[in-house]
């Protein structure tokens, strides 16, 4: 299939349909409303269910109810809306229900802003709701990867009977890029859903899909069963990508999503100047590539590690846990909806290496961004 130019939000919606999603429930919120608009048109065409709910609170439970049928269902929202869904996500985790939840992140806390941010990292990977549970979190850094991971998200949700989140900053949802959908979507065999879905108690005992266990022994058993599954995730589902990682690297950057792409630009520029920097990009934020980061960061040639995020340092804590104090770790971040210019990241790296920036004019095409960056620094 030829590549087509698509907006991230619409590509995510189409990917869900290609992955066999039969139900989509939503509530409008910027910057992800295009998913809802696309689905409102597309779902009737493919015989699926589209429903705009009365709130994200209700939508969370519509997903719970719809997932109980055993069919593939999902929702999309943005940060404040995702906060409202945390209760339902906790209930779905407790009840072992598969669903895909997409968070096209905007700046917070509170109502925050509507521009791209990565400040929902803690909420996503540490369990935004109550109880002993985790959510498998995938973070694309391009529209194509959003498509690929969206399809993977449905597969993993069904494989593990668990809620899976795809988180992208607003840039992933709003920008247009060429994407290619697989001609035929093939998956490895999955567990039989008729073993657990609420399909009517014909010729079998009634099934109860619930997260309530008043007997503490049973609740503890459920929590340890979940924990056993999370151990399997940490063993089998860690995903990451290395960019220009080699034994000449002086600095290892850890960054994800849109921020990682900006770091790649910086790495390319520095490479041309003879400064070697590598990037480790976590693709799964939970399970986190802890061992992979440890292995790369503790290599002899790495002098320092730099975590770069569009937040005030959230993933940094997981990077610190991965490196266990064996290498110095620094942080650079912008937040509140500001996407850093490559020059800002570059300046940070130069400072870390004890180099002063050359006074020469920035590369062509970046003048405006560089000026902006300088202006920000002055503030």
């Amino acid at each position, binding site marked *: 299939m030829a590549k087509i130019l698509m907006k991230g939000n619409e590509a995510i919606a189409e990917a869900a349909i290609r992955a066999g999603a*039969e*139900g989509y*429930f939503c509530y409008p919120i910027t910057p992800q409303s295009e998913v809802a608009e696309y689905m409102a048109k597309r779902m009737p065409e493919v015989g699926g*269910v589209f*429903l705009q*709910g*009365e*709130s994200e*609170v*209700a*939508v*969370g*439970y*519509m*997903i*719970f*109810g*719809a*997932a*109980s*049928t055993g*069919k593939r*269902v999902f929702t999309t929202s943005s940060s404040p809306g995702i906060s409202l869904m945390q*209760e*339902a996500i906790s*209930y779905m985790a407790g*009840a072992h229900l598969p669903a895909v939840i997409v968070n096209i992140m905007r700046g917070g806390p509170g109502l925050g802003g509507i521009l791209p941010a990565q400040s929902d990292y803690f909420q996503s990977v540490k369990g935004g709701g109550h109880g002993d549970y985790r959510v498998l979190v995938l973070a694309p850094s391009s529209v194509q990867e959003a498509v690929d991971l969206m399809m993977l998200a449905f597969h993993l949700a069904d494989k593990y009977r668990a809620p899976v989140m795809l988180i992208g900053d607003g840039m992933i949802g709003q920008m247009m890029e060429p994407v290619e959908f697989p001609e035929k979507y093939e998956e490895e065999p999955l567990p039989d859903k008729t073993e657990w879905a*609420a*399909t*009517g*108690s*014909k010729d079998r005992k*009634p*099934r*109860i*899909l*619930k*997260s*309530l266990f008043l007997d503490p022994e049973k609740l503890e058993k459920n929590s340890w069963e979940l924990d056993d599954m999370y151990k399997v995730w940490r063993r089998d589902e860690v995903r990451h990508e290395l960019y220009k990682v080699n034994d000449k690297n002086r600095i290892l950057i850890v960054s994800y999503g849109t921020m990682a792409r900006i770091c790649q630009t910086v790495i390319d520029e520095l490479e041309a100047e003879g400064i070697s920097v590598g990037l480790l990009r976590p693709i799964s934020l939970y399970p986190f590539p802890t061992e992979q980061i440890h292995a790369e960061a503790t290599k002899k040639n790495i002098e320092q590690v730099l975590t770069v995020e569009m937040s005030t340092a959230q993933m940094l804590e997981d990077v610190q846990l991965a490196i266990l104090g064996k290498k110095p770790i620094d942080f650079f971040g912008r937040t509140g909806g500001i996407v850093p210019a490559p020059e800002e990241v570059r300046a940070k790296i130069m400072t870390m290496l004890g180099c002063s920036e050359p006074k020469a004019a920035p590369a062509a095409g970046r003048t405006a961004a560089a000026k902006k960056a300088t202006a920000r620094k002055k503030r």
Partner: protein
Amino acid sequence: MANAITSIFERPVALQETVTHYCPGCTHGIIHRLVAESIDELGVRERTVGVAPVGCSVLAYNYFNCDFLEAAHGRAPALATGFKRLRPDMIVFTYQGDGDLASIGMAEIIHAANRGEKFTTIFVNNAIYGMTGGQMAPTTLPGQVSTTSPHGRDVATAGYPIRVSELLSTLATPLYIERVAVHTPRHVIRAKQAIRRAFEYQVKGLCFSLVEVLSTCPTNWGKTPDDSIHWLEDNMVPFYPLKRFRTPETAGEVR
């Protein structure tokens, strides 16, 4: 033939054989039975899914002999919506108390009713939060003593009780809304007719339907089961009139 034994009263197939956890004098058990009888009579048990609330009937799935989903507090109509939309061939009902439906779940019930979701809601109103120990509910009567209105519900600060059936009847979409009670055999028979009718409408693809059932709570009202029946008759029925508010025939009148 003279010695043949004929069974004239049995446990409905849609109820499980289990020991009740409901308090003596509580009418949840009667309402459970009426729902189960209706499911049996319509022959839909094998394609029925119930949604349990949070409250005394949180364990409803321990009594009904059909698949069940356990909702968060107030969210049963959202679960029922999601399920029924994906499986319109199934029969779906929510069973909710007044704290669950009329307080924390008010948004969900209004919007499910207004969208005309094709499921049935059994709304059990006993004018109090039962499971948490008798706190004031949106349905607690003026002057009624509860653990969080120890001097009686003060309408100056807590407002007047919400009449859910009347409120939902202001919407144009719902097709069947009726309030019944189960404190006397006569009322039980009438309640059964209403509950069965609500399920029938769903089987025919018509809905939204809601049956509000006035119920007793001797434990939290601080009354004997017998006194509770009289208290319900004397206090709740005048405030919450037993009435058919909406039928498919009258639905057009409000549109």
